[in-house]
């Protein structure tokens, strides 16, 4: 069936099998492989994207449920060749090791910072509870989100 939606600001129209999951549509049809598959059951959060501005796990949403929606993936977070402060934060604060969970972590954190520009460490951990990482120990991830939040507040103030 036909699917119309906007991904990272670009309108798309594709013919898809109705049972196609959003994550498979994004990766296999739209070619955006930064959205990862970790558990297929909404537990690990590696597949997190934004659907109309809210973080969702794309492995348990049918692509057709995104009809008419605006989707943002990790590839759409950087603007004009410049990394998003969260992407810089995860790099500079070493919030990543193997990097497989990273895009999902960043997309969840972006949702948090949109609602709460100055989250405490506990609020960050609470927000990221649906994203699992097996490598880093989370501490550097929390540091990365704090660093990005600071940077975003400073930019807004400037």
């Amino acid at each position, binding site marked *: 069936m036909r699917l119309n939606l906007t991904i990272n600001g670009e309108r798309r129209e594709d013919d898809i099998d109705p049972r196609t999951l959003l994550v498979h549509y994004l990766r296999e049809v739209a070619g955006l492989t930064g959205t990862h598959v970790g558990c297929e059951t909404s537990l690990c959060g590696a597949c997190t994207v934004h659907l109309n501005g809210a973080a969702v796990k794309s492995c348990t949403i049918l692509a057709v449920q995104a009809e008419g929606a605006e989707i943002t993936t990790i590839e759409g977070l950087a603007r004009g060749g410049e990394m998003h402060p969260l992407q810089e934060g995860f790099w500079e604060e*070493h919030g990543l090791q193997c990097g497989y969970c990273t895009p999902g972590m960043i997309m969840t954190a972006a949702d948090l910072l949109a609602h709460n520009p100055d989250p405490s460490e506990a609020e960050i951990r609470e927000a990221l509870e649906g994203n699992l990482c097996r490598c*880093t120990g989370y501490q550097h991830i929390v540091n990365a989100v704090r660093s990005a939040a600071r940077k975003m507040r400073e930019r807004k103030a400037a």
Partner: protein
Amino acid sequence: MSQRVTVNLGIPEAPREVTVVIPDDEPIPWQLGDHFAIVGAETPRVDGPAKATGAARYTYDIALPGMLYGAIVRSPYPRAHVKNVDLTRAMRIPGVRAALTITDGEIRFAGQEVAAVAAISSDIAADALARIKVDYEPLPFVVEMDAASADGAPSVFSGSNVGKPQISNHGDVERALAAAQYRIEATYTTPVQTHVSLETHGAVAHFDGGALTVWCSTQGVFTVRDDLAVLFNLPPDKVRVITDYLGGGFGSKFGASPEIVIAARLAKESGAPVKLMLPRGDEHLATGNRPNAEQKVRFGADASGKLVAIDLVQRGSGGIGAGSGSAGPFKMVYPCPNVRTEERNVYTNAGPSSPMRAPGWPQGAFALEMAMDEMARKLKLDRLEFRRRNNSNPVRAIELELGARAFGWPEKSAAPKSSGPIRRGIGVACAAWHAVGASGPEALAIAYRDGRVEIRCGTQDIGTGTRTALAIVAAEELGLPIAQISAEIGDTRYPFSLPSGGSMSSPSNTPAIRQAAAHLKAKLFKIAAPALGAEPSDLEARDGAIRVRFDPARRVAFKDVCRRIPGDSISAGGERIPNYAAYRPDQAGCQFAEVEVDTETGVARVLRVVAVHDAGTMIDPLTSRSQINGGVLMGIGYALFETRRMDPQIGLMVNPTMDDYKLVGPLDVPQIDVMFLNVFNGGTNTGVLGIGEVAHVASAAAVACAVSDAIGAPIRALPMTPDRILAALEHA
């Protein structure tokens, strides 16, 4: 030609001069007093932007034109005879391009590969799996160690399920125990733990013109290449294996494992590229695990608080796999004149074990350190003091003091215990490992006319930061900023390297990189020397320039030297020579943990961990700290949550999901303080030691000791789940 050099190794508090005879072209080992431009500074990862923007391509992300999707039928029975596999109905589904029988004999564990298909989409492949008809004859099975060890138990292979004991004997343990003034005896058990790498196992395989190219999620591109070359009867140069980015492995991704071979067989059968990534559930069943263990420990100690006898009788089951031994820590952490260890594999109808982060050590360290606590209590000695008295490693001696101070051990151990429902406890545990690396790896360093430098080495970055470590070492040797270096790894077209395991990657590869960079530098010095009016031997590479050592104002920019390269580039090779004399043959570490136990619910929470380690020459504290954090995290999971639960009645794992197999989440992590001792270890030109495993050895043990301390009674089984804690409280 060789050179004899004396280097000043170790730590400032305990330095030692070591004389080594090394080849002329081997750089002099980094030593105490050396000044570094980038080694030891906090360098963010070279692959950070690729990973943070989604540009990094994992095996899961590879897509080729005309690619098919593979899927595997697995046995639902723990033991069975496969009488017939009927693929015809699956082949009739439009879009199915290949179907294969994988096993037509005996099934030995639930989850074993039976058949496989390749189709034009993953959904159609899943449809096809459902149409494959397998005729099983279920057979008696056994999934638990006790049942497997009993007389008349069903044989997992043939004969007894209990393997021959591996015995190591030093001194006379029985006599020492009989004479010992203090004795303890206890039995400790640990569960099966699975790796749960975020990226599942899998491959994309493509036959083209008699050559096989495989992208796969592996810790060893060359071992996969060699395995596939044998299996498909191809010369090794006709097999290319690529692992650009890998979503975790932890020891479970070595060699051509079944899903890689099946992907290649399906590609051959269908004549099209095939991608086969495992679903999450299969990961728990079939791709490896840390075996469980039952460890019977006896200690003897004298009145001065010294261990005089250590005895371990252990058995463990890695399902149909071996390698369940856990004696390492008993032999390597605390010196003792009489040590006897006996290890046995017990085979059961469960998925095969595979190496997992410090194989055998976290389970051994748990039993060892719990027994240390039990003995310290018997001796009425402070538990830290008991460890001090039984430590002979000068590096660990310092680490214990640093850690104790940062943790506040004296204050915390003197604090009165709460009489309320929430109780706090503390624990300390020691780690050891032997990540000195090995010879074998080669490297190539290439300078281009535009000033870029590329280093190539066929190692792989399993998430630990190998790519970054290699780039730092090359940048240091060539006096360049790291942005000017590109590290190309993860491809069998690059110079040979070893699998990434045993914390061997950094100690094995960095010396080859440094040698290659030094050889490249020597060639560039020859180009630069005439312009500087100096001999090549008088030059050094620093701050992006090549300059005269005794007159640094006479310099030429590195880029300007590169412009004089005839042709497009100049390259030099480097070789990892065998280890020579080092400061120490091993490395030490210790971790302190504080926990809080709710005695009404039985829930334990880790509040704080202090981890003190040495990584040999410190290359990058930022990535090293992250490695230690990760080791601690996995240890907390092992101590409190993780366990593969088997139903003995049906022989199946009942929790093969990320929901039911509980992992540590962001809220379960305490404050972790990591401290490093920079030990110039020598032994190679970099003196780097790997830390992936030593980071994890003591973590669960420290937490377990702290939980036991909190409730005032030892809990001798992992994981320390609320039911176990409540049961122990009843007996406390």
